[in-house]
C-alpha cells in the first residue's frame, strides 16, 4: 500500500492531540481504579454528565465550556464524595465490593445514561466557543484548535494532579492509602476520609473531561460507552496508578486509533483499545510504568 507521508504525519499528530484528551478522561479512573482500587465503571457516565452540564450552561448563558467545567469542579467533587460515602457504607465496609460494588456502579452508569436520554433525547448536542472552528496550518500539518485546546488544558490538569499527589500532604496520603492503610492509621490519618477526598477529585476530573469531550465532538448519552474499554485499557497500559504512565499510554492509544481510522476506516477504531487491553493483560499486566 502506498500512503502519503503528510497523511501519516497528520494522523500521528492528531493521535497525540486526541491522546492528551484521553489522558484527562483516564486520569479520574487512574485515581479511583488505579490508586483506590474502586472499579468505577460509571466514570464515563459522569464524563457525559459533565458534557451536558457544559452544554446547558453554554447554550443558556453562553459561558465558555472549559470555564464552566472549572466552576463546576466543586459540585462534581461533592457528588464524588457522596457516591464514595454510599459505596463505603454499603459495600467496602461489608467487604462486598467485588460483586455488588461492581453491580452498583454498573447500575449508576445505566441510571445516568437513561436519565439523560429521557430528559435530552438521543439527539447529538454541541457547544459554541471561539476556538471550535479555526485550524492552524503549519505547511502540510493541520492543527484543529478544537482538539489542541482540550489537549493543552488536560495536560495542565494532569500536571496539577501530579503536583498535588507528589507534593502535598493530602496527595501523599492518597498515594499511601493504596499501599498500607494500617500505616496510615498509625500516622493518625483516617483512610476513609482520604479515600473520600481522592474519589471526589477523581469525579471532579470528569467535569473537565466532559467539557473537553463536547468541544471535540457532538455528544449524545450513549457516547460514554465507547470510552469504557478505552479508559480502562489506557489505565492498565499506563500502569494503573501512574499519571505520567497514563499520559504516555493515552497518546499511544490515540496514535494507534488515529492510524487505524486513517488507513483502515473509522469503523475499526473501537477494536484497537480492546486489542491493546488484552495484549497488556496477557503480556505485561503491570503496564508500561508499573510499580
Amino acid at each position, binding site marked *: 500500500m502506498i500512503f502519503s507521508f503528510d497523511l501519516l504525519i497528520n494522523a500521528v499528530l492528531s493521535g497525540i492531540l486526541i491522546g492528551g484528551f484521553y489522558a484527562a478522561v483516564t486520569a479520574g479512573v487512574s485515581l479511583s481504579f488505579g490508586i483506590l482500587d474502586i472499579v468505577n465503571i460509571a466514570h464515563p457516565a459522569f464524563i457525559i454528565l459533565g458534557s451536558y452540564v457544559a452544554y446547558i450552561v453554554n447554550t443558556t448563558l453562553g459561558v465558555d465550556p472549559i470555564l464552566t467545567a472549572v466552576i463546576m469542579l466543586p459540585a462534581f467533587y461533592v457528588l464524588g464524595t457522596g457516591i464514595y460515602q454510599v459505596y463505603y457504607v454499603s459495600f467496602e465496609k461489608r*467487604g462486598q465490593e467485588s460483586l455488588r460494588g461492581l453491580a452498583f456502579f454498573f447500575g449508576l452508569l445505566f*441510571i445516568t445514561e437513561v436519565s439523560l436520554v429521557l430528559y435530552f433525547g438521543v439527539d447529538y448536542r454541541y457547544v459554541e466557543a471561539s476556538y471550535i472552528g479555526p485550524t492552524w496550518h503549519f505547511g502540510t500539518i493541520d492543527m484543529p484548535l478544537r482538539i489542541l485546546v482540550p489537549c493543552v488544558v488536560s495536560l495542565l490538569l494532569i500536571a496539577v494532579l501530579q503536583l498535588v499527589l507528589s507534593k502535598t500532604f493530602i496527595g501523599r496520603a492518597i498515594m499511601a492509602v493504596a499501599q498500607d492503610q494500617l500505616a496510615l492509621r498509625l500516622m493518625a490519618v483516617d483512610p476513609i476520609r482520604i479515600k473520600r477526598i481522592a474519589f471526589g477529585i477523581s469525579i471532579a476530573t470528569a467535569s473537565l473531561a466532559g467539557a473537553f469531550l463536547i468541544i471535540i465532538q457532538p455528544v449524545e448519552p450513549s457516547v460514554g460507552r465507547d470510552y469504557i474499554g478505552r479508559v480502562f485499557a489506557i489505565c492498565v497500559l499506563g500502569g494503573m496508578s501512574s499519571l505520567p504512565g497514563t499520559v504516555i499510554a493515552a497518546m499511544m492509544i490515540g496514535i494507534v486509533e488515529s492510524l487505524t481510522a486513517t488507513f483502515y476506516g473509522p469503523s475499526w477504531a473501537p477494536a484497537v483499545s480492546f486489542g491493546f487491553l*488484552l495484549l497488556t493483560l496477557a503480556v505485561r499486566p503491570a503496564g508500561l510504568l508499573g510499580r
Partner: protein
Amino acid sequence: MRTPLFLAICLAVAAAVYAAAVGVGNDYVFFAGYVILQYIVLSTAWNILGGYCGYVNFGSAAFFALGAYSTVATYKLIETQELPHVVPLPVLMLIGGVVSGIVGFGMGYLTLRLRGAFFAIATLALAVVLQTLIVNWDFVGGSRGAYVLRPEDLPLIGPYIRYLFLVMLLLAVAALVIARLIERSRLGYGFATIRDDELAAEASGVPTLRLKLIATTISGALMGMAGAPFPYYIGYLQPASTFGLDYAVNSIAMPLIGGTTSWVGPLIGTILLGSLQQIVTVTISSAVNLLVVGVILVAFVILAPNGIIGLVHHYWQRKPEDFVGRRHVETDAPGAVP
C-alpha cells in the same frame, strides 16, 4: 430432591406453562413469554459465573449476540449455497452454544489469571470489539442488519412463535437443571471456594483456574444458546440492538435481585423483573423500563445484598447458624487492626 425428580417437576411445570399459554389463545402471550424465558436462561447462565464464582460478566450481550449471529451466518451460508433444507433450530442452538462457549473459554483464559475486576472490564470491552467485528462483517449484514425469514407454521404446534416459545421453555428447564446440578456437585463447592476466598482455595489445592474456565465456558455456551433462536424471533437482526446494554444489565440485575447463591434466585428475579418490564414497556415506555431496572438494581445491591432469597431467609428462617456462619464480620474499616 434427586435430580431426575427435579427434572420431572420442571418438565411438568413447563408443560403447564405451555398449556396455559395455548389456553389464553393470544399469540402475544408467546411473544412476551419468550422474552422472559430467554432472560431466565441468560440470568441463570450469568449466575453460574457471577453468583457461584463471584466473577462479574458485563458482556452477556456479546455472548447472546454471538449466538444470534452464528444463526444468521448459518442461515446466510445455506442461502448462498442454495441448499434446500432449513437447519433445525436445536442444531442452530448447538452451533451458537459452541461458538459462545469457545469465546467464553478464550476470554477466561486471557483474563481470569488476574484479579476479578480485570475480567469484568475485559468482558465490557469484549462487547465493543465483537460489535465492531460484526458491524464490519458484511456477510452477516454489517451495520445495516440482516433479515431472517421465519419458517412456516409447523404441524401439531401451529405458528412458529409457539415452537420458539417451546424450545426456549425447554432450554430454560435445561439451564435450571444444570445450575442446580452444579450447585450440588463438587464443581459447585469448588466454585463457592473461589467466590469466598480464592487465595485460600488455591492454597488448599482447588484447581481454581480450571474451575473458572469451566464456569466461563458453561455460562457463555448457555448465553449463546439463548441467543441462537433470537433472529427467528425478531426477524431483523441489527448489531446496535443485539449488543444492547439492556441484555447486559438485565442478566446482572435479575440474579442480584433474586439472590445469587441458588438456582432459585435468578428464576425469581427474572419472573419479577421480566414481568415488571413487560408491563412498564407496554404501559409507559421502553426507556423508562430500563431506568426502572437500573434503579431497582442499585436499590437491591445497597439495601438487600442477598436479594429476595436473602430477605426470605432473614424473616422466615431465622436460624442461629446463619448469623454465626456469616463470613464478613463488620469492622469499622477494611484493614482495621485485628
